[in-house]
């Protein structure tokens, strides 16, 4: 019997289907059925990224009658993103349309949360070996009638004798397995001990190599480094989209989801735990010989025998014996199911500053059950464990030189100082610098424009997309398969628009344009500039940057610049000796472009260094060196956090910093890079 409170819904092209409660939004239904639809604004009906199409008619294959009428009331918010024609064709916003009857929903390519290409490769940083978990090999005598002491006590005695380890505890689950392992190893075992305090694992025989994983939980991307703790080498780097992205792109929308939904926190926490588990699994699977591969494009899957000279580690998640996690304060709280509500409101106090050691089993993280997960400490509400990770990786507090460290993400974090004093701050950059919120912004997936050049004389555009090495100039239009613009492309684009004179210092489009690429949009009468013509794209329309997009980027870069400047003023300095740029796209930040667009105050180009995912490096350092954990706790309480927005002239500074590269500040180091007539506007 059909349940009248439910409706059937099918998503195409994924083919996912199921029944959902009538009245839920299409986005909510997609979430329930595991279909990823973009929702950058967190269903506030403002981003238009979740555009979907409701198919009309009876579909035998699924035996459902789908109709636009089943999509609920049309809302005014939708008019901004969907024109009359599209509306006729069944287009709706997923966050506005409601399931009121059976539906067949098509998710267009642009609305699909695509697979992201992330470059969070491990960087070679100097870490001293002193891990929290160490392996000790002991041999104990077999019990006899004369000497029938218990198994554990024998091991404890041997550890004391050989290594001077005293007062050791043992994890209860490890104890359950102890007697078997001891006999299996014929009274010779390797014991994993955490912080010289607790036995976590007993393995038969002698084992040298052991493994841990360091994780950076970003708002958008989660990256994990699987490391051989004994040798300190990185076995593999794996990454994924944060599964919480479906609740909204930024930290605030996640916190709001918690405030609006009773089970929101539990849901989001479960999502990230599930994500972590799948990352661990993914990393471990990569250490096994490939089972099945497709050979030279044939459809048949064939099993190949591993080559003789390759040694496969064949790790299992239970082989992971230590884990460290960094993340911003909100990600930290949501993972640990700590109420994140107060982190989202001034004065933004976190629930806890200090680092935590929590048993993996208590967090439902599927690695070795007995081990601890080490969560690094938080600095402040908007400067979390991820920034602490950056700090312990870069150690500015040990250096004489004055360093400015910028971690660009959905939230920008800034650190300035040297061994005498260190201050930190955060600024709401929003996701614009990562490509989100812009008309044609997208994640760093294949088809995303990542490099752009604009000719200053003709204003002609050349560009390169991810997944294709050949630039547009040397390609046929249809070969480009362009879909949008990603974060690193945005930086390039913005700097080039300014350098070539397409936009003025104020960010306004130059009234003297040289090319038909500049036009007024016929729908909203807004000026825009075409980057890729429709025939170069897979989405069938021109990819443009609008005046509004330029404004979004100006807000983000203005916030960063203003933050840097106010912090420099706080320390009474007018220049820094080094600028380090970190972040998800920090790995491919073009330092020249960053300076041209005015992400930070003027400095010599040679002094700008890209440090990649420094937060993840910090997690790795804490995995391999227990002193780094101490150091993290110390530094998290010794960096002075500064709330910039309450500075008296914040508004004025912010406003000045919105111009390119700045309203008033001189940029001597751009001479020769940017034409004088542009620079001296």
């Amino acid at each position, binding site marked *: 019997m059909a349940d009248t409170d439910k409706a059937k819904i099918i998503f195409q092209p994924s083919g996912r289907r199921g029944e959902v409660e009538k009245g839920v939004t299409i986005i909510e239904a997609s979430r329930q059925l595991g279909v990823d639809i973009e929702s950058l604004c967190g269903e506030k*009906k*403002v981003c238009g990224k979740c555009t979907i199409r409701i198919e009309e008619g009876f579909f035998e294959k699924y035996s459902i009658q789908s109709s636009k009428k089943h999509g609920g009331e049309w809302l005014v918010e939708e008019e901004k993103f969907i024109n009359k024609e599209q509306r006729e064709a069944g287009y709706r916003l997923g966050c506005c349309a409601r399931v009121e009857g059976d539906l067949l929903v098509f998710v267009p390519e642009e609305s699909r949360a695509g697979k992201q290409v992330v470059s969070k490769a491990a960087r070679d940083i100097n870490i001293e070996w002193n891990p929290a978990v160490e392996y000790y090999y002991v041999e104990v005598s077999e019990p006899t009638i004369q000497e029938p002491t218990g198994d554990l006590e024998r091991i404890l005695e041997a550890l004391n004798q050989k290594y001077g380890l005293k007062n050791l505890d043992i994890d209860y689950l490890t104890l359950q397995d102890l007697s078997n392992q001891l006999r299996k190893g014929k009274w010779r075992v390797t014991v994993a001990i955490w912080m010289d305090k607790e036995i976590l694992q007993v393995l038969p025989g002698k084992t040298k190599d052991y493994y841990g994983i360091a994780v950076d939980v970003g708002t958008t991307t989660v990256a994990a480094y699987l490391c051989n703790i004994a040798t300190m080498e990185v076995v593999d780097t794996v990454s994924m989209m944060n599964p919480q992205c479906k609740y909204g792109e930024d930290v*605030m929308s996640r916190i709001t989801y918690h405030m609006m939904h009773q089970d929101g926190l539990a849901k989001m926490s479960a999502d990230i735990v599930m994500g972590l588990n799948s990352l661990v699994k993914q990393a471990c699977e990569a250490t096994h010989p490939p089972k099945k591969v497709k050979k030279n494009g044939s459809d048949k899957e064939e099993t190949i025998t591993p080559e003789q000279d390759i040694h496969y580690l064949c790790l299992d998640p239970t082989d992971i014996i230590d884990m460290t996690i960094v993340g911003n304060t909100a990600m930290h709280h949501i993972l640990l199911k700590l109420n994140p*509500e107060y982190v*989202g409101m001034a004065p933004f106090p976190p629930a806890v500053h200090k680092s935590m050691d929590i048993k993996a089993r208590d967090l439902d993280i599927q690695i070795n059950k007995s081990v601890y997960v080490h969560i690094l400490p938080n600095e402040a509400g908007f400067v979390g464990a991820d920034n602490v990770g950056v700090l312990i990786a870069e150690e500015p507090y040990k250096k004489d030189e004055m360093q400015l460290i910028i971690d660009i993400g959905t939230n920008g974090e800034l650190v300035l100082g040297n061994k005498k004093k260190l201050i930190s701050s955060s600024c709401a950059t929003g996701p614009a610098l990562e490509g989100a919120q812009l008309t044609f912004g997208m994640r760093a997936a294949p088809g995303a424009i990542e490099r752009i050049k604009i000719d200053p004389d003709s204003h002609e555009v050349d560009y390169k997309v991810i997944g294709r090495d050949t630039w547009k100039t040397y390609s046929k239009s249809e070969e480009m398969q362009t879909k949008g613009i990603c974060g690193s492309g945005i930086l390039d684009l913005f700097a080039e628009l300014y350098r070539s004179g397409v936009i003025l210092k104020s960010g306004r489009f130059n009234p003297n344009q040289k090319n038909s690429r500049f036009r007024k949009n016929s729908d909203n009468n807004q000026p825009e500039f075409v980057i890729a013509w429709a025939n170069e794209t897979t989405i069938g329309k021109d990819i443009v940057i609008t*005046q509004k997009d330029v404004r979004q980027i100006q807000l983000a870069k203005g916030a960063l610049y203003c933050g840097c400047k106010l912090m420099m003023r706080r320390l009474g300095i007018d220049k820094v000796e080094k600028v380090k740029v970190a972040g998800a796209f920090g790995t491919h930040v073009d330092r020249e472009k960053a300076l041209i667009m005015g992400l930070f105050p003027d400095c010599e180009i040679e002094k700008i260094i890209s440090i990649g995912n420094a937060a993840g490096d910090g997690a790795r350092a804490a995995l391999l060196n227990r002193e780094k954990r101490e150091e993290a706790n110390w530094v998290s309480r010794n960096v002075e956090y500064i709330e910039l927005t309450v500075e008296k002239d914040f*508004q004025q500074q912010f406003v000045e910093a919105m111009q390119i590269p700045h309203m008033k500040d001189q940029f001597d180091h751009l001479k020769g890079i940017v034409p004088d007539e542009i620079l001296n506007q």
Partner: protein
Amino acid sequence: MEKEELKQELLKQLSDNVISFEEDKVVEAAKKVVEEGFNAYDAIMNGLAAGMVIVGELYDKHEYFVPELLMCADALYAGLDILKPHIKPEDLGESAKGQVVIGTVQGDVHDIGKNIIKMMFEVAGFTVHDLGRDVPLEKFVEEQMRTDSDIVALSAMMTTTMMGMKKVVEMIKERNPNVAIMLGGAPVTKDVTELFGADGYAKSAGNAVQEAIKMIGRLREMQTK
């Protein structure tokens, strides 16, 4: 007739120089208005404010941005400082005599948008009681009661702090249902306004400006009738 031409010329100068944010020229024109004995209120509304209406339109089209907007505001304020002391009480019709309580709600320290709105109200002749930012929710209620203001304008830049607006609306409506409550800020939507039981809404800082400018526009219309 010559006098009338000069007056129109000065009004145009006030308006144009607000748009091109040329503070000195605004000051010059404003002084001339006073010297020639033209109606100061007329110069504010049909000169300065008229220019700001166009600024608002440019902003709405994203052609002007926050820096330009604020520079225009500076120019406008410079003119206002000169003209305001010369306003005759009888020029202020009923329409312009409102009082507004304005502030950014508790937990939120962003106030650029709020400051822009505040300016708009001031230009329109409202008496503005600015509570600043991170304002405890009860303070809005107290200030409204104390001043008997007609309008309470609440701003929030973060979704998390936006939730506090609902409480303020409830508290005020409970005591005085005739107060008009206006919400603004990045996360605020029309839905939220309705859900929270507020009376008016400005979609973003930009639209808030637009809204406020429309208000000025309406005031000017009423005045010319």
